[in-house]
């Protein structure tokens, strides 16, 4: 039930071998990157900070999409790897070195290692069972973050994380921090896109669409699913490391159910299986939570929940699934 059920969320064309980048997609990507890079020149510092936060959350959502959209494993505990990355980066910055790539490498390693340990249990299941197990495992990690006080700071979180240093200078300037996050965001996205476009990604889509058949052909789905889980965990850890660099704070909230649910929400709103769609979804989620949230007395999730319900009913493939083509009958696509 799991693979087929999850697969119906989105079904991009199946292409064995490496995918190609068309000139249109290439131009759009270049324009987007240039716009993001030049944003600090045009935006007020608080708007730049909001944009930086969107990039971080977008990387988390994109890494979750590797599981949800491409492998067909709906995870409701992906924030665990994100939060562990944030804590690992914070700990290394405090107890080791805050020099540029070290905290991020620690974050990636922590995310990947935990994904190996927890994924080894989780990927044995599929469908809603996978959803429940990832949720339960993430809850264990959150409890650990709350109770392991000497290291994590307990329920107050780990605060006052040392600012990341690049070439001897601390990254406290909003614009410099934005470019630092943007650089690693692009690296993370490139990793996810390469995985998705490679024969490995094609195998994952095969497992998503018809696991028994892939097994019959001679693949071992467990290995592929675990590899996808670890890759997604590593990139989520990278996003967590960026979070620690930006807000210089890691809390049990970052590991919790709400963060996981918002990440899944971003994937569903944006359109699963596309990598870029969830980035748009994440931008929307952060916009609603952080920009409209305060004017709603901190009840941004109320709006997000309503958006979520509307999206599930009306746009089963998310923003990315809406066909912007000239052919009119395809303007509104519904899941088959």
């Amino acid at each position, binding site marked *: 039930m799991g693979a087929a059920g999850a697969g119906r969320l989105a079904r991009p064309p199946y292409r064995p071998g490496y995918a190609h980048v068309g000139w249109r997609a290439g131009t759009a990507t270049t324009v987007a990157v240039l716009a993001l890079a030049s944003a600090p020149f045009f935006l007020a510092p608080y708007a730049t900070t909001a944009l930086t936060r969107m990039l971080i959350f977008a990387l988390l959502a994109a890494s979750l999409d590797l599981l949800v959209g491409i492998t067909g494993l709906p995870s409701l505990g992906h924030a665990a790897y994100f939060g562990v990355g944030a804590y690992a980066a914070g700990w290394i910055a405090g107890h080791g070195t805050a020099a540029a790539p070290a905290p991020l490498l620690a974050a990636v390693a922590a995310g990947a290692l935990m994904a190996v340990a927890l994924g080894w249990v989780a990927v044995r299941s599929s469908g809603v*069972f996978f959803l429940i197990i990832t949720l*339960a495992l993430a809850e264990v990690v959150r409890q650990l973050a709350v109770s392991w006080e000497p290291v994590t700071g307990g329920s107050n979180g780990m605060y006052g994380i040392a600012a990341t240093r690049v070439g001897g200078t601390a990254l406290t300037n909003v614009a410099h921090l934005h470019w630092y996050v943007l650089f690693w965001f692009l690296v993370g996205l490139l990793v996810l896109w390469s995985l998705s476009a490679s024969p490995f990604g094609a195998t994952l889509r095969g497992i998503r669409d018809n696991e028994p058949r892939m097994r019959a052909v001679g693949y071992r789905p467990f290995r592929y699913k675990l590899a996808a889980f670890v890759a997604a965990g590593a990139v989520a850890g990278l996003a967590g490391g960026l979070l620690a660099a930006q807000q210089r704070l890691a809390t049990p909230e970052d590991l919790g159910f709400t963060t996981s649910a918002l990440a899944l929400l971003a994937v569903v709103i944006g359109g699963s299986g596309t990598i870029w769609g969830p980035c748009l979804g994440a931008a929307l989620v952060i916009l609603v939570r952080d920009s409209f949230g305060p004017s709603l007395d901190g009840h941004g*999730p109320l709006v997000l929940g309503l958006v979520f*319900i509307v999206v599930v009913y009306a746009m089963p493939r998310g923003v990315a699934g809406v066909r912007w083509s000239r052919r009119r009958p395809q303007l509104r696509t519904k899941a088959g």
Partner: protein
Amino acid sequence: MANWVDIGVIAVLNGLAIGLLLFVVAVGLSLVFGMMDVLNLAHGAVFVAGAYVAWWVVGGSPTWTGWLAALGVALAVGALAGGGLLLMTGPLARRSHLEQALLTLGVALVVAELLSLAFGEDVRSVSPPPGLGGTVSVLGNAYPAYRLLLIALGAGLAVAAHVVVERTPLGALVRATVADRDMVAAVGIDARLVRAGVFVVGSMLATTAGVLGSPIYSPRPGLDSTILILALVVVVIGGLGSVRGALVAALLIGQIESTGRALLSDLASFLLFGSLAIVLALRPRGLFAGAIGGQH
């Protein structure tokens, strides 16, 4: 030595109270999934709605009429919630399980936010009914009287659920639908009404558990996901769609939760989820999934 026995007695009684409460929450979740393949992630929010009803109606000055009124209001709220969720998931019946789960996740977010808008962010404590606020001596230990009542009520509800599902024609239809929905339809039984009834009754049980559990689990923001996760663990260990499995798993989780907290307070949740991981590694579909069901 006597000290250990005392701790043991209290922990076992606490575990029984928590376990029976969890059973009342989880049985609805389990049967709704078993019969309709809807994983209701809003179930925890429904429980918390019941707990807030208890605080709103009973509050700090408890009376027996207040408690009975709270139960009545909670039953009505539960019926409305169940009916609403049924209507909302209906149009998605032909889509994947995941999309239905996502829909209920959205509903859970909305309900949790509405509750915290209405009742604030503080922990709202509810006092037990008059005469039950004190303690009773159990084997020489002082034990809260209300929890004994909770054990009795929970046991009563568990027996009732067991008798209805295992011993009545209606229960046979429920079990048959869990086991093979298409075959039930093929032999000419229209089970739609029964499915709707299970959804509504499951939600009513959740709000009832919310009221009964409110002196222990004080309503507060975030309680919904705590209860949801515990109920999901119970349902997964017991096997989706099995009443007996849910009962055994709930009692087991209750004991692990309370003895774990009494002996190794920091490690309690690891014990809880460790046992989940072990069960899943050995029997991926839960302990009792083979007894009935097994369509997955």
